[in-house]
C-alpha cells in the first residue's frame, strides 16, 4: 500500500475532533496528512487541496444546519476547478447520512459511529473488514492453557480420592437415565426406520407421559408440535447471514459473555439469539423446562412450549444450533434432572460446544435424588469427556442458602471427577447476593469484596478456568430496566477486572416474573456491559483487603469440608447427611428418581 496524501478539512464552524482521530489513524498507517482548521470557506479548502496535490479529501460536519447546501457547494467548487475528478472525496460526522453524501456526489459518507479504521480503509481504497468476533472469527477455547493442578497437596489427595471413589461407586450402578442415554446413542446411529425395538426398550425406562407421547402422540406438558410452516421457517434459519456484532470488549480479550435463552419456542429462541449475537454475545446457554428435569425420558421432533424453557429434542436443538453464528459458543445444560446423560448425548449430536453438570447442586438444590444424580452425573462427565465437551460446574445451591464454602467444595469435587474422567471443567462461582451473604453481611458494604474473594479462593485451590454466573448479579436485579442494566454491567466489570474466562449475564427482565423476556431487554444489558468494559478498559476495580481475608477463610473452610466428605466414606452418604449443604442451609436431598438406582 503506497503512501496517500490526505487533506482533512472540518467543514464546520468549530468541530474537528473526529477528523483529528482520523488523522492519527492515517498517520499511524503511514499516510501524509494535512489537517486544516475549522470554519474555512470551501474555496480555501479546495485551494489547499490543489496546493498540496492530495489524492484524497476528507471533510467533517457536526452541526446540523445547512448541511446539504454546504456539502453541495464544496462539490460544485471542486468540479469547477477540475479537482473533483482527480481525488477521492469523503465526508463524515454527526450531521452526515451516507445516503445524503451519495446523493450529493461524494464517494463515501460516514455517519455517526464510524471508526477511524473505516476512514483509513476508504483512503486506501479497500473494503473495510471489521474485527472478527471470537478469536479471529473462530470460537475461543475457554479451557485452553489450564492444567487443573490442585496447588495444595493435601487438598489434591483428598479430591482425587473422593473422585476416584465416586467414579468406582457409580460405575457399579445404573439408572433409567443411563440406560436411555445408551439407547439414544444407538438410535442416533441406527438407520432411519430401523429403531423400533430400540424405541420399545427406550420406553421401558420412561415416565407414562413420555410413553403416551410416543405411543399415542400426546405431547407432554403444555407443548404442541410445530406446524409445517413453522418448521420450514426453522429450517431456513440455518446458516443465516453473518452479523457484524457490537464489539463488547474494549481492550481485554476476556471474559467471553454468554446470554441465556429458553423462550419455549425454538423460532423465538433463534430470533432472540440473533439479537444477543448482534449485540455482541459470545455464547448462548439453552434453558429447558423445569418439569422436564423431573420427567423420565425426552420427546422427539419439533415442539414449542407455552411456558419458560425450550424442550430438549434433537430437532429443536439442531435447529437452534444451526442458526447461530460460526463464532458463537453454545451450551446445553445437563446439570440437574433425570435426563442428564441423554442431554449430553443430544447436545453433542446437535453440535453444542459446552455442557453444564453439577450433581451436588442438582441433588441438593434442584430436587433430584443424590444417589440417582451421582450415577447419572458420572455418566454425563464421561460422555462430556468422550465428546470433547467442556462443562461448567454451577453452584446454584448458594441460592437456596448454602454457604459458598460448601457449594465450592461440591463444585471442586465434581470438577475433580470430571478431570479424573478426562473432561475439562470450568468453575462457576455465583456472583450473587446470596441468602447466606444476606444473613452474614458480607455484602453490607459493597458487592466487590465477597465476589472477588470467591475468585481468589478458587484460584488458590485449582488452576482452572472460571466462569462466574449465572447470571452474574443474581438477586441484585429489580424490575427497573436501568437498575437491572447497571447492576449487570458493574458485575461484568468486576468479572473483567478479575480477568475471569467467561460470564453469563441476564437481561433487564431478570427480576420480572409476569411473562417472557423481551428482546429489547436483552439488548439493554449487552449495551450496558459494553459500556462498562469501555469505561474500565484495561484498568480494574479495587476490592478492599477483606477480599483476600475472606478468600483465605474460604480456602480453609473448603479444605475442612472436603476432609469431612472423605471421612464419610462415599459422596452419596455425604450428600444425604448434609455435609455439602443440609436443611440448616436450606438444602434438602431431592426425591425425583429415588429408588431408581440398580446394581449393574
Amino acid at each position, binding site marked *: 500500500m503506497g503512501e496517500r496524501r490526505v487533506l482533512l478539512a472540518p467543514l464546520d464552524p468549530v468541530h474537528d475532533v473526529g477528523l483529528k482521530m482520523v488523522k492519527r489513524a492515517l498517520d499511524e498507517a503511514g499516510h501524509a496528512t494535512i489537517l486544516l482548521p475549522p470554519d474555512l470557506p470551501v474555496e480555501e479548502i479546495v485551494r489547499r487541496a490543489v496546493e498540496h496535490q492530495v489524492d484524497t479529501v476528507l471533510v467533517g460536519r457536526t452541526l446540523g444546519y445547512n448541511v446539504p447546501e454546504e456539502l453541495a457547494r464544496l462539490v460544485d467548487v471542486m468540479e469547477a476547478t477540475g479537482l473533483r475528478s482527480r481525488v477521492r472525496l469523503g465526508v463524515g460526522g454527526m450531521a452526515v447520512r451516507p445516503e445524503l453524501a451519495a446523493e450529493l456526489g461524494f464517494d463515501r459518507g460516514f455517519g455517526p459511529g464510524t471508526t477511524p479504521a473505516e476512514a483509513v480503509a476508504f483512503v486506501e481504497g479497500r473494503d473495510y473488514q471489521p474485527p472478527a468476533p471470537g478469536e479471529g472469527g473462530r470460537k475461543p477455547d475457554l479451557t485452553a492453557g489450564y492444567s487443573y493442578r490442585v496447588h495444595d497437596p493435601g487438598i489434591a489427595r483428598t479430591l482425587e480420592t473422593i473422585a476416584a471413589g465416586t467414579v468406582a461407586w457409580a460405575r457399579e450402578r445404573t439408572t433409567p437415565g443411563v440406560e436411555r442415554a445408551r439407547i439414544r446413542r444407538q438410535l442416533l446411529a441406527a438407520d432411519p426406520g430401523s429403531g423400533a425395538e430400540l424405541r420399545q426398550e427406550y420406553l421401558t425406562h420412561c415416565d407414562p407421559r413420555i410413553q403416551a407421547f410416543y405411543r399415542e402422540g400426546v405431547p407432554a406438558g403444555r407443548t404442541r408440535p410445530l406446524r409445517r410452516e413453522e418448521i420450514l421457517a426453522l429450517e431456513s434459519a440455518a446458516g443465516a447471514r453473518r452479523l457484524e456484532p457490537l464489539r463488547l470488549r474494549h481492550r481485554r480479550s476476556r471474559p467471553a459473555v454468554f446470554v441465556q435463552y429458553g423462550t419455549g419456542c425454538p423460532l423465538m429462541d433463534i430470533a432472540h439469539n440473533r*439479537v444477543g449475537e448482534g449485540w455482541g454475545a459470545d455464547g448462548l446457554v439453552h434453558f429447558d423446562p423445569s418439569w422436564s428435569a423431573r420427567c423420565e425420558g425426552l420427546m422427539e421432533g419439533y415442539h414449542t412450549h407455552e411456558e419458560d424453557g425450550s424442550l430438549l429434542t434433537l430437532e429443536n436443538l439442531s435447529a437452534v444450533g444451526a442458526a447461530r453464528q460460526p463464532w458463537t459458543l453454545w451450551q446445553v445444560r445437563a446439570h440437574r434432572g433425570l435426563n442428564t446423560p441423554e442431554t449430553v448425548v443430544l447436545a453433542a449430536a446437535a453440535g453444542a460446544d459446552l455442557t453444564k453438570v453439577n450433581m451436588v447442586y442438582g441433588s441438593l438444590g434442584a430436587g433430584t435424588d443424590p444417589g440417582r444424580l451421582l450415577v447419572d452425573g458420572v455418566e454425563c462427565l464421561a460422555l462430556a469427556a468422550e465428546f470433547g465437551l467442556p462443562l461448567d460446574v454451577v453452584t446454584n445451591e448458594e441460592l437456596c442458602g448454602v454457604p459458598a464454602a460448601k457449594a465450592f467444595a461440591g463444585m471442586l469435587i465434581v470438577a475433580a471427577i470430571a478431570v479424573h474422567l478426562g473432561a475439562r471443567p470450568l468453575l462457576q462461582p455465583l456472583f450473587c447476593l446470596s441468602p447466606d451473604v444476606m444473613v452474614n453481611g458480607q455484602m453490607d458494604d459493597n458487592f466487590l469484596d465477597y465476589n472477588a474473594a470467591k475468585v481468589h479462593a478458587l484460584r488458590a485451590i485449582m488452576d482452572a478456568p472460571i466462569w462466574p454466573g449465572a447470571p452474574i448479579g443474581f438477586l441484585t436485579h429489580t424490575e427497573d430496566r436501568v437498575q437491572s442494566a447497571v447492576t449487570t454491567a458493574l458485575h461484568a466489570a468486576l468479572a473483567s477486572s478479575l480477568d475471569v474466562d467467561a460470564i453469563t449475564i441476564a437481561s433487564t427482565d431478570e427480576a420480572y416474573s409476569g411473562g417472557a423476556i423481551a428482546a429489547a431487554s436483552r439488548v439493554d444489558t449487552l449495551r450496558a456491559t459494553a459500556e462498562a468494559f469501555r469505561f474500565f478498559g484495561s484498568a480494574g476495580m479495587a476490592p478492599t483487603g477483606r477480599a483476600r481475608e475472606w478468600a483465605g477463610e474460604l480456602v480453609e473452610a473448603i479444605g475442612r469440608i472436603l476432609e469431612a466428605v472423605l471421612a464419610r466414606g462415599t459422596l452419596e452418604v455425604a450428600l444425604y447427611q448434609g455435609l455439602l449443604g443440609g436443611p440448616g442451609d436450606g438444602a434438602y436431598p431431592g426425591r425425583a428418581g429415588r429408588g431408581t438406582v440398580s446394581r449393574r
Partner: protein
Amino acid sequence: MKARDRVLDAIDVEAFLLAEDEETARRLALTLMEELGLPGADVVFLEWRGTGARVRIRSYAHRPGDDYAWLGGGERGG
C-alpha cells in the same frame, strides 16, 4: 381527566423491531406510534444490527409551554 392527561410530559415506547435495515426500522418505528394512536412521534434512540433494531420512540403528551391537562383545566396540550 383521561390517563393520558396525567402524563407529565412524554410517552416513550421501547421495543425491538424486526427490520432488514436501519431506515426500514426507523420508518416502522414511526408507523408503530401512529398505529398506537401516538402521533407526532420522534425516534429517540435506534440501533440496528443485522436482524432488527432496538428502538425508543417518543410522543409528547405535554411539551413545556403547552396547556397542561394535568392542571385540571380539561384541555390537553401537545
